[in-house]
């Protein structure tokens, strides 16, 4: 009829009120459906189906890994701290096969060598020098082209004597080739390098022999045995600790490291018991 408001010409407040009521109704409905189907406090009618689906997708390997992680937390006892990890594609390519704990052969030093992966990439220790280039060492961070620190392990907290806790957990010392013409190139291969990505794509299709063949290509310029301790932990070491932003007292400690002597010069180093009681 003329002059009469049409059905959809309601005041705006009506829509607002209607919307609020709809939300409330929907929330109650979702709550009720959850209560009936999956909630542990209700009849849980869908739980058997959910369990069946989980069972079909279950991996014995994954279960065992989780169980071991849980076990390790308690075995370790000293409060295992979870740190953020780099995504696979930003990790050095070596990680694909060797993980963050690559050393396992020498019982005496394997844990100590693995400790170094916190500070530098594999190439820092295992790089084969080129004839036409010198190797320079800089801090490398996959998220930051020019990391400025402060970096972990580079200084002591004057209050506690402990190493300073830092925010940058990803920077590592990495080698760069520097050529006579002033050009510089990274000696580091990260996992999104074309060769690495291609390998990840096809590695399940390759025979073990073919896989070995490809792996050789990853090890160009890589020597199996890394540097000896003295190569870095000495006054004229290849790493200029001060230049790499280590504090003066930390740099001296690293140059004149106690552990190095224990590892290289002594078979056994007995701990005195005079002050035990």
């Amino acid at each position, binding site marked *: 009829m003329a002059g009469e408001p049409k059905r959809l010409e309601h005041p705006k407040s009506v829509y607002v009120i*209607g919307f609020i009521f709809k939300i409330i*109704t929907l929330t109650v409905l979702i709550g*009720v459906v959850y209560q009936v189907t999956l909630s542990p406090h209700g009849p849980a009618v869908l739980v058997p189906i959910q369990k069946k689906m989980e069972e079909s997708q279950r991996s014995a390997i994954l279960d065992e890994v989780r169980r071991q992680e849980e076990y390790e937390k308690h075995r370790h006892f000293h409060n295992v*701290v979870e740190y953020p990890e780099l995504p696979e594609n930003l990790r050095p390519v070596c990680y694909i096969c060797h*993980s963050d704990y690559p050393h396992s052969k020498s019982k005496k030093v394997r844990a100590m060598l693995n400790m170094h992966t916190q500070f530098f990439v594999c190439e820092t220790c295992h790089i084969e020098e080129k004839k036409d280039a010198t190797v320079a060492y800089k801090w490398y961070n996959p998220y930051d082209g020019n990391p400025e620190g402060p970096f972990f392990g580079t200084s002591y907290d004057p209050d506690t*004597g402990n190493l300073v806790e830092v925010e940058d957990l990803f920077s590592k010392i990495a080698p760069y080739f520097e050529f006579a013409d002033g050009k510089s190139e990274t000696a580091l291969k990260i996992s999104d390098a074309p060769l690495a990505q291609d390998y990840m794509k096809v590695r399940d299709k390759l025979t073990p022999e073919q896989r070995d063949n490809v792996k050789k290509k990853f090890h160009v310029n890589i020597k199996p045995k890394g540097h000896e301790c003295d190569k870095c932990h000495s006054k004229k070491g290849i790493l200029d600790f001060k230049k790499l932003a280590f504090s003066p007292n930390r740099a001296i400690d690293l140059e004149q490291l106690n*552990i190095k002597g224990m590892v290289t010069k002594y078979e056994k180093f007995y701990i005195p018991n005079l002050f035990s009681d």
Partner: protein
Amino acid sequence: MGNKPLLKGRKIMNQLTIRCFKEDIILELPKILITAILCIAAFFTFTLSGSEADAADKENCLMCHKYKQIGRIDEQGRKRSYYVNENIYGNTTHRNVPCRDCHSYIDKLPHDEVTEEVNCANECHVKPPFAKENFSHKNIIKVYNESVHGVHKDDSEELKQAKPYCKYCHLNPIYTRVDEKRIAFEQTLSRCLNCHERKGVTQAYKHITHRLRNKTSRSPQEVVQLCSKNCHANMPLMESLKVSPESLESVETYNESIHGKAVALGSQKAADCISCHASSSIHDVYKKDHKLSTVNDANRINTCNQCHENVNERFVQIDVHSGLGREEKPLLYFVNLGLQVVFYASVLGLVGLMLLETKGRKKDGILWQIKKGTSWRGRSKRK
């Protein structure tokens, strides 16, 4: 200011030990001379150390173990981390215990692969206040050994393997502040500070107040999770250990109970496993027919009395872990089923009505409906 001697002490220690390795001539000296130098170095560290973790690390184990990547993948492919975070360790209950008090099998550096387990009954070189003997966990271990979780002679090999040992349940406890409502932390601590040094007394105060919340320092949710996960809710394990039918479904019946539901919904006051099954000794869990069991018929009044008032003989007959099996308890089963039907029918009916109402109101709008009456049925009444 106070840390200058510490840093100086560390520096001297470092220099002394460095010289041991650096100068070749030292290599020729008898071992006793090296030991003597190290003793002097150790003396400086002992007397001048100031960091919290340093208190326990008189032999500088953290020299290696403070790095997070120290570890390896073992022969079975398991990741083994040997990292001890010095800042966190300094804030735990074991902060003053020298490393070798627990790891007593380590006698040289670099030490061999550790194959021995730590014995928590070891006496450590920490003397508690009010006592002259060295501290040890042996009292609580005695209670634990006699409990249902301790290993007994007549246990099968499988049962012995499955029983929880200290580290199975315990991690190195980190001090946390107790709820302000329970203890006004700063206000109470300020009284201690009249006589005692802040750093030491704050840790001691946290140590004492750590347990002043519930029977344990863990939340009810954590306790239920601890007892259930991997153990009492692990049906294949429990079946293989041939536990009683009641024990087999204990987690399920607890979760169905009023206590279990309250804890699942976040209550910090509702009873968890420890509340009923152990006294303040916490480790004295027994089977319910054992006379020392807190859930034994003779002791139940005291147990329920911890939370409930006016507990009498009839009250303690209430089945806390009540299963609702159709065969065992048909009446209870059908009453429960009937109540569930009534509950869901009411809720779903109401929601259905609301949906119909909403659909109807959409036709003419709420204001019109308020003024002119309902419009949800039939054609629009707007004229």
